[in-house]
């Protein structure tokens, strides 16, 4: 899982990520309209959302608290902060300014530790409001050449936290790890559902390249990256594009570029010359937000264990590495608590981890199966009474039913306990039935083993433990 170093034609890449995440509040950042995805267009609106004359923003305290959770989870300093107006014209921006934070963000100076042991600095994580959503009729679906545009203001005013990393990322893999780990933290602390496909987590990448030891190069900002996988592809493409330009004697222009998932390239969206001058100034309709120590401490104390800690606990319990795929996956799905509960009631954590990862892929955060049932199943396995294959069959039925006694299900399938003496006699019978295969096996032809195992499986109607049979054959040959 460790991030591979990226080098191309002797150049290294320097990447910083700006992640926008929609907070899971009931209402908007500055008004009482619902913060809900997928409703009928223009139903979650009010004078503040629409920027009607005379409307005034009132800050949502819960949004501040969720933003503080993010900051504290990232090791940031939570500080007293102010809001500022970022001014620019766009039809889906009702007031023609966005209320954001500029020189005094809520959270500053943190760090995100990645599962591969690397770390990425966090410059800031500040609160701001989302814009509405435009859809363009006809043409390409972009504003240029469209026949008309429709605007849905449901998203306008939805609380966002923008998390700005330092330019510490040096490879597409590391960028992907950063995005996945950040996502896991956001979900774990309950700040957001952080779904990139639905746009509740949006990642922009600032990419530049340089020869090792050189000062930072000119950066381009990549937008429209809609999955963790695309993030890696987009960064890789963009860095190679910049290397090719430099190698061709050209220079990189500072610009905003659009990632096209279809052709796998980035395209110029706007250059620095036609970038807006945002004319930031203090938002006069809002006052200083000064979280006191008691509030910060209370939020910190209520933080759940973070994914990195949970991975370490799960790894320790199951004898895995913290960045093992099964550990990563199960923690990401939030099923680690279940695995530990299985161990708690006398099951095998190691076997539970395997089952939960494989069988519970779709089951969500809280599998319906009681931990005790899975514990009983894993016990049958560790006692040698069920093979892995048999256990899988039994588990599938238990998950389907949401309950069940593994002993009874195994019995109903005729998965009887097969003691080793019974298995030994089956192995002996197989050798007797196929002396040719046995001779080849003893002569070192590994393939011959398959025929022998096949005999045993046939004799046992598929219930023999393949591993045990192999071990017995090896033992007989070596004795």
């Amino acid at each position, binding site marked *: 899982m460790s991030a591979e170093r990226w080098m191309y034609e002797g150049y290294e890449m320097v990447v910083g990520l700006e992640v926008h995440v929609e907070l899971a509040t009931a209402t908007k950042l500055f008004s009482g309209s619902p913060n809900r995805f997928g409703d009928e267009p223009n139903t979650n609106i009010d*004078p503040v959302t*629409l*920027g*009607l*004359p*005379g*409307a*005034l*923003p*009132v*800050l949502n305290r819960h949004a501040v608290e969720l933003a503080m959770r993010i900051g504290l989870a990232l090791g940031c300093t939570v500080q007293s902060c102010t809001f500022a*107006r970022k*001014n620019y*014209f766009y*039809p889906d921006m*009702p*007031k*023609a*300014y966005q209320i954001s934070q500029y020189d005094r963000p809520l959270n500053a100076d943190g760090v995100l530790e990645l599962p591969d042991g690397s770390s990425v600095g966090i410059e800031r994580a500040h609160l701001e409001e989302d814009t509405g959503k435009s859809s363009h009729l006809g043409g390409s679906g972009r*504003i240029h050449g469209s026949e008309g*545009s429709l*605007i849905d203001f449901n998203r306008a005013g939805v609380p966002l936290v923008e998390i700005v990393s330092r330019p510490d990322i040096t490879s597409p893999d590391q960028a992907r790890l950063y995005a996945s780990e950040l996502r896991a933290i956001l979900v774990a602390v309950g700040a957001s559902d952080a779904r990139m496909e639905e746009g509740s987590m949006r990642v922009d990448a600032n990419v530049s390249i340089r020869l090792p030891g050189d000062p930072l190069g000119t950066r381009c900002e990549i937008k429209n990256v809609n999955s963790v996988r695309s993030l890696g592809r987009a960064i890789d493409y963009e860095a190679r594009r910049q290397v090719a330009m430099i190698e061709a004697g050209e220079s990189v222009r500072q610009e905003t570029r659009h990632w096209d998932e279809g052709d796998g390239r980035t395209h110029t969206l706007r250059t620095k010359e036609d970038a807006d*001058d945002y*004319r*930031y*100034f203090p938002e*006069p*309709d*809002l*006052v200083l937000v000064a979280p006191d120590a008691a509030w910060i401490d209370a939020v910190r104390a209520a933080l759940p264990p973070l994914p990195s800690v949970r991975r370490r606990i799960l790894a320790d319990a199951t004898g895995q590495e913290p960045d093992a795929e099964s550990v990563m996956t199960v923690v990401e799905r939030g099923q680690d608590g279940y695995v530990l509960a299985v161990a708690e009631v006398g099951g095998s954590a190691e076997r539970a981890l395997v089952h939960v990862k494989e069988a519970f892929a779709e089951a969500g955060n809280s599998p319906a199966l009681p931990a005790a049932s899975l514990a009983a199943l894993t016990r049958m396995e560790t006692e040698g009474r069920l093979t892995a294959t048999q256990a899988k069959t039994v588990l599938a039925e238990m998950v389907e039913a949401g309950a069940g006694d593994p002993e009874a299900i195994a019995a109903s399938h005729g998965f009887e306990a097969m003691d080793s003496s019974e298995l030994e006699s089956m192995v002996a019978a197989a050798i007797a039935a196929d002396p040719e295969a046995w001779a080849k096996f003893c002569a070192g032809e590994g393939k011959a083993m398959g025929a022998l195992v096949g005999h045993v499986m046939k004799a046992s109607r598929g219930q023999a433990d393949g591993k045990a049979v192999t071990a017995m054959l090896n033992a007989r040959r070596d004795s």
Partner: protein
Amino acid sequence: MSETIRSIVSAVRSGARSAVDVTREHLGRIEAREPEIHAFNLVLDDAALERAGEIDATVAAGGDAGPLAGVPIALKDNMCTRGVPTTCSSRILEGWRPPYDATVVERLAAAGAVIIGKTNLDEFAMGSSTENSAFGPTKNPLDPSRVPGGSSGGSAAAVAAGFAAASLGSDTGGSIRQPAALCGVVGVKPTYGAVSRLGLVAFASSLDQIGPFTNDVADAALLLETIAGHDPADSTSIPEPFPALMPSLDRGVVGLRVGRIADLPAGADPDVQNRVDAAFEALAKAGAEIVDVTIPAFTYGLTAYYLIAPAEASSNLARYDGVRFGLRVPAADTNAMYAATRSAGFGAEVRRRIMLGTYALSAGYYDAYYGKALKVRRLMSDDFAAAYSQVDVLLTPASPSVAFPFGTKTADPLAMYLCDTYTIPSNLTGHPAMSVPFGTGADGLPVGVQVLAPALGEPTMFAVAAELERAAGGAR
């Protein structure tokens, strides 16, 4: 004609007069003289009579009709009224009907007031004469060849002409106090945050404040007590309860220290300065101590204001883009539509201030202009704080001159801006200030004396204003 709120309320509540009759009398005066004065953008005659009828029914049923029962009140047309056009005297908002009432409108309604109309103003409250209204100027009822002041000229004129017993205006740099002075009525800019701004169409949010125009000081106290107080829907609203004002009116000024600003910028006409000098004498005679103080930053107020206010305005007025409400001038693409809409919808002064403000906030100019203006604003607060360690209130002219004839300042924006020299500092500091009529100057026109006080110093400010009113011979 100059009937007080208090006399109307006591007559209506006792049943001696009906609210409907009171409203009819005011509508009658409007009918007679409004075509000449043009104080209103909209007279709400039917709605006012209907509301007055409800008040009378409440009184007849023995109910509590409220502390402003049956009082006809006019609103500056930059305060939102549900379902009723709110224009800011701008083409860009023509036809727009807000879906909600401003907090002050709700509070007036709850107190039993009768909203009689929406008054004219300089477009988006930018101006000192109402000559910037897209719907034509308001005339000064005391001399229709002269301006009523601005930007709340319509609200001042409505009270001076007896069209309403009181009115509300908004004051960003003097827009209540200067027209009050020019029309000979009382006008108050309360402490910033004392009155909710919810539903006030913003000009410069950190400076805007709603306040009353009335025929006398006691009416102003009563009306301000009604509209002031915390509003959770305005984040800049002061959380503490607003102090009672009525008990201060008879306090007198014995033992109070009244400050004279030794380094006040020159520019007041001699007739105005004479009345201010007379005001100091009257207060000294009534037992106040007159103390000289200096406020060095005062002189920079105008410059700082004309960076901060346009900067905020450039942002506040950016929402008038033709996308969601108000005027839209169709064009080939979105940017052209914005430009066409805003060029057609905004008048010259509004466009000028949007450009000034945009420039002051631009990359590369922010530190030299907006940033420096914020520093002046801080200096101003420091200087006033130092002065208030020595005195309880300060006294200055409200306006450098009495009402001036139409057209005399329209060609020179800077001359117009100078009208606000003495009023602007209170907006920059957020302190309260009010204009009280104190005799007449040139051509027999009224002169307003401005009383300034520190934040939430309204009780003392009203005590001094009431003393000046007594010295001047009572209400008009």
